[in-house]
Structures are given as C-alpha cells and as structure tokens.
C-alpha cells in the first residue's frame, strides 16, 4: 500500500492568484496522478505526473493553467494558476505503487473568492 499526504488540506484564495499543492508519498512509486473533483461531481483526471519529464495532460487541461512538477519518485506538486471561482474544487493526488491498486491522498479543498 501507500500512504499519501497533501498540503495544504484546504485554502481560500482570491481570484487571479496561484496556489501550489504538494503531494508526498511514503514510498517510491512508479505513477502519480492529479484529479479534480468539482462540487457535487465525480473525479476527473487532470494529468499524469511523470518523473523527470513533462506531465501528460488530459483533454481540457493545459500546462499553463495547471503546471505540475515531479522531481523524484515520492513527491509531486500541482499549481492552480490565475484562479477563478470556477476552480473551486477538491484536488486529489494519487499514486500506484508496485501493484495496480491506486491510492489517494486526503485532498486539498480549494475555495476561490
């Protein structure tokens, strides 16, 4: 299994600003992902965080808006840039250790005013 922590757990931000969310895994993992959950909705994949190379983004998500870093096999960051109220969501990171099971962090609850 994998234990995943995220910081911050929640934040309230002003429109036009940026927030960086950190994700830490307690062991080295091959794959890390970032998801968004808008209010009352299911989870949608933003991107796959690739170690040592650029992230792979899903349709509808772009690097300028959601830059992602993954400097090593246990850590990743997601930045939500130039925020608007529509970015208010829960952002979750996940990781897949040696098995196929994917584990999730506790999420970051973001409110944009």
């Amino acid at each position, binding site marked *: 299994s994998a234990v995943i922590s995220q910081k911050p757990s929640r934040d309230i931000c002003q429109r036009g600003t940026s927030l960086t969310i950190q994700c830490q895994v307690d062991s080295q993992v091959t794959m890390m992902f970032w998801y968004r959950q808008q209010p009352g909705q299911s989870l949608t*994949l933003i991107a796959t965080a690739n170690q040592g190379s650029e992230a792979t983004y899903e349709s509808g998500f772009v690097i300028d808006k959601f830059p992602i870093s993954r400097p090593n096999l246990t850590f990743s960051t997601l930045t939500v840039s130039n925020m608007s109220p529509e970015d208010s969501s829960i952002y*979750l990171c*996940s990781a*897949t250790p040696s098995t196929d*099971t*994917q584990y*999730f962090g506790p*999420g970051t609850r973001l409110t944009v005013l």
Partner: protein
Amino acid sequence: GIQVEQSPPDLILQEGANSTLRCNFSDSVNNLQWFHQNPWGQLINLFYIPSGTKQNGRLSATTVATERYSLLYISSSQTTDSGVYFCAVIYNQGGKLIFGQGTELSVKP
C-alpha cells in the same frame, strides 16, 4: 472512451438494511476499484477487483469482467457507511482511473 455508469445514483437505507450497488462499464478493463468517499472528502480504498469476488467484513464485491459489470454489497448497514461510493476502471496501460458518477448512500439510524 470508456463509459462507467453506476446505479442507483442515490440510496437511503435504514440502519441494519442490506444494499447492492452496481457499476457497468462499456469496454474491457485492466483494473476495477471501489472507493468510499466519506463526508469529509476522504477517498478510501474498498476493493481492487478486476474479476472475481472479494469480501472484507460487511462488504463484498463481485466483478464479472466478461459481462462488464461489478457489484458492491453492503450488509447490515451502519450510519458510518454513509457517503459516496465510486467505481473506477483502468482500461489501457496508462494507469489512469476513469470514475463513475457515484452512488450517494445515506444510512438513517
């Protein structure tokens, strides 16, 4: 892309009752997981079950891969079972999970 459909969308139970949640998917999958999202937003792994049957306490799950569906059984429900139950699948080698829309369960005392 693959479609993942869950039913029912909402379910209200009296404490002690049993329930069955269903997940249909439109293509062959490499992985299927069930999650419980509690009222605080935490996503908890319940089962990794691409095929077959597994049990964990009051919960059990069955996936019939050839017929493209999975079932989650909750027996003797408790108020702490309340929340949203998600089914999610991986259908290619990319590792990314595709989520259904969830079943919101409310267990009344």
